[in-house]
């Protein structure tokens, strides 16, 4: 089947008239697939954000009818228009799942990786174009399964994005859909990661050695290894949980488990802790899957807009590799409170402290790169600059969580939520926005509007901090992350309850701040300022192809003569020397 699809798609590529389906839906061109991923990822990102806005209403005004949407949700989800606790749990679980697995990763890896990586290494396409297409389709299918699960009896998955057993084992049908959806998403990232690694190894242009690779490619390369090796254990876990739910096994159900006052009639003997081990063995590397491509994007934008080479390229690369390796042996720092023992806890807190070192090296190198630069403050650069302190806050607030004794107090409080959202929201998502503004001219041949861009950036920065800073204050006061009423039932949370309204209104402000982005994005596709192939005067190879690049990418054979960031080379005619410009020319 795939064979014939490909043949027809291939035949279509050689004809003047491409039907819409073969050009945009069953395309094997990495650029189209990258755009498919980006657009789908942005849609899911927005959808996940909408789920969150509904939750934030409930947290700020518990029990009050949800404006606009309340009446549409039905009596089961929202009796009288107010969100029911069960539905709140679905919103929470699906917000996490959608943002991580269907929003940020597909954007960062599937979107930017697919579009930019082959161009940056001077390749005509990915090594396996058809597998690339399958990877996107599998992702889309997984996404659809997840969305449909909202309409199953009992609703979507509601055991948190971590799906902790045994709660998830006995949850309604939506959890089975979650597991099936995850199997599709895992398949997608597996196919994608193989493609990325092989493409990077095999299709580099002549002269492009590994130490001449742009940092973005290195980030994608290491990320692909994490996806390749960390996802299969989650697939194993998903299979085991499916067996528990469908075939009645007890992998995660202990003997004598009591549910609603009744001892569960199962064989027992399972281990709830096993799920946590398998899940976090994926999900900790997954954290680095979220952040490494973001660092890659920021590095590209920073080097280009400071007009000087990245500070410490080699230490950046070595830190990245070390980070990727270490990310496989820190997972149990999510499990300090499970009673796994102090010896294990000591081991994992030590590895956790060690892994913070390469992260700090990378952040420091990026900040030092600004030193003495003639910085251009365009929108892409603003987002990249904001990434640095935001990721810094996110990283530093993680240290107390990585040490087992402060974690006893902070575990499962809103502090944790504040911490990782600083890493992922104003961290990774800002980097993704930087990437959208930076590579938009390459995709469309037109630049996005700078004024609208700044209208997007500044309010987003303010609102992001207004959402997540109060969250950490609430968490330090001891408010749990999973309360459908925001913690009102507990007296001790009284002094910090007022912050819920601040955060919720900031979240709605953040939604409004995205309007200039949507306007700018869609308007610029047709009406943006037309630009040439290299509007930012950049050195890396993607800017040496036409904008937008044709099928096959480059109009002439590419030979690389230089490192990736030769900006402001003394004695050069211009302040940038493209990688394919011969030395001495």
């Amino acid at each position, binding site marked *: 089947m795939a064979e014939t699809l490909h043949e027809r798609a291939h035949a279509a590529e050689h004809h003047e008239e491409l039907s819409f389906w073969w050009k945009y839906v069953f395309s094997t061109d990495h650029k189209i697939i990258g755009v498919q991923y980006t657009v789908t990822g942005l849609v899911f990102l927005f959808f996940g954000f909408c789920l969150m806005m509904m939750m934030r209403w409930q947290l700020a005004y518990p029990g009050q009818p949800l404006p606009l949407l309340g009446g549409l949700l039905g009596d089961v989800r929202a009796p009288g228009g107010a969100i029911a606790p069960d539905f709140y749990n679905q919103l929470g679980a699906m917000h996490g799942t959608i943002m991580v697995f269907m929003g940020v990763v597909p954007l960062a890896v599937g979107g930017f990786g697919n579009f930019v990586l082959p161009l940056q290494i001077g390749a005509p396409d990915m*090594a396996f174009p058809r597998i690339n297409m399958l990877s996107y389709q599998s992702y889309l299918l997984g996404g659809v399964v997840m969305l449909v699960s909202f309409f199953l009896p009992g609703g979507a998955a509601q055991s948190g994005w971590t799906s902790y057993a045994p709660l998830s084992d006995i949850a309604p049908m939506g959890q089975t859909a979650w597991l099936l959806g995850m199997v599709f998403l895992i398949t997608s990232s597996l196919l994608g990661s193989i493609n990325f690694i*092989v493409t990077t190894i095999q299709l580099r242009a002549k002269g492009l050695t590994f130490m001449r690779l742009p940092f973005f490619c290195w980030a994608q390369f290491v990320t692909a290894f994490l996806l390749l090796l960390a996802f299969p254990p989650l697939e*194993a876990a998903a299979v085991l949980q499916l*067996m528990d739910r469908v*075939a009645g096994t*007890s*992998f995660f159900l202990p003997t004598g488990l009591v549910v609603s006052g009744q001892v569960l009639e199962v064989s027992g003997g399972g*281990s709830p802790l096993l799920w946590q081990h398998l899940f976090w063995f994926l999900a900790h590397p997954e954290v680095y899957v979220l952040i490494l491509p973001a660092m890659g994007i920021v590095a590209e934008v920073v080097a280009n807009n400071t007009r000087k080479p990245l500070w410490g390229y080699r230490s950046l690369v070595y830190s990245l590799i070390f980070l990727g390796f270490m990310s496989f042996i820190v997972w149990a720092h999510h499990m300090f409170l499970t009673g796994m023992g102090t010896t294990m806890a000591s081991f994992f807190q030590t590895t956790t402290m060690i892994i913070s070192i390469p992260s700090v090296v990378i952040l420091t190198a990026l900040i030092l790169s600004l030193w003495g630069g003639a910085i251009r403050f365009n929108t892409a650069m603003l987002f990249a600059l904001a990434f640095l302190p935001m990721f810094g806050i996110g990283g530093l607030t993680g240290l107390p969580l990585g040490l087992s004794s402060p974690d006893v107090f902070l575990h499962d409080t809103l502090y944790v939520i504040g911490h990782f959202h600083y890493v992922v929201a104003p961290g990774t998502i800002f980097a993704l926005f930087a990437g959208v503004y930076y590579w938009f001219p390459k995709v469309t041949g037109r630049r996005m509007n700078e004024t609208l861009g700044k209208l997007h950036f500044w309010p987003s920065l303010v609102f992001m901090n207004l959402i997540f800073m109060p969250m950490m204050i609430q968490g330090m006061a001891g408010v749990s992350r999973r309360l459908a009423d925001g913690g009102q039932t507990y007296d001790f949370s009284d002094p910090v309850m007022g912050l819920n309204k601040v955060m919720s209104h900031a979240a709605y402000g953040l939604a409004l701040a995205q309007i200039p982005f949507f306007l700018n994005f869609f308007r610029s596709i047709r009406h943006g300022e037309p630009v040439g192939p290299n509007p930012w005067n950049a050195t890396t190879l993607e800017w040496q192809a036409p904008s937008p690049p044709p099928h096959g990418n480059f109009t002439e054979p590419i030979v690389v003569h230089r490192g990736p960031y030769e900006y402001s080379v003394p004695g050069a005619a211009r302040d940038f020397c493209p990688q394919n410009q011969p030395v001495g020319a």
Partner: protein
Amino acid sequence: MEIPYTVEARPDTGLTSGKIGIWLFLASEVMLFGALFATYIMLRVGAPEWPVGATILNVPLATLNTVVLITSSVTMVMAWASLMRRDLSKARMFLWATVALGGAFMVIKAIEYNAKFEHHLYPSESTFLAIYFTLTGLHAFHVLGGMVINAYFAGPGSKLWHTNPQWLTNRVEHAGLFWHFVDLVWIFLFPVLYLL
């Protein structure tokens, strides 16, 4: 547009893209089965008592299956070796033989499963049976996948021979690597589940 290094090896890496791809895929498979074996260890260590596999499972049938699967690995290598000697019809014969041996494995496995079900030994019965059915079931899916791939190269996929014999040889080699891996998983499963 041609993607380079699909048929010819890239000089500085000495490998075709497909070869690297299949090894990466196998690495991820190692992580998949590795996680399941780790599950087995964790559940067994935590269990108050654990049955000896031979008291529940049929060791002679599993031994026969081991022989069948190892034989199929031999025929798989012969298929690839025939292609290297540019003998398509022999290669197709060996590929079909591999598919048939895979089918024999599945039939024997089905007989084993059936015997269990007749005695009401279902996955929900005990942790041992749960992990037994999960591991062997997932392995059987892999055997089935390998059979489909091999049947494709023995049947419609072999048309590639007339336009690009080297490419077909490479692809059969990659299918063989997968097949040997599936075989290897069984070599681990057999002692772990039946004998220990």
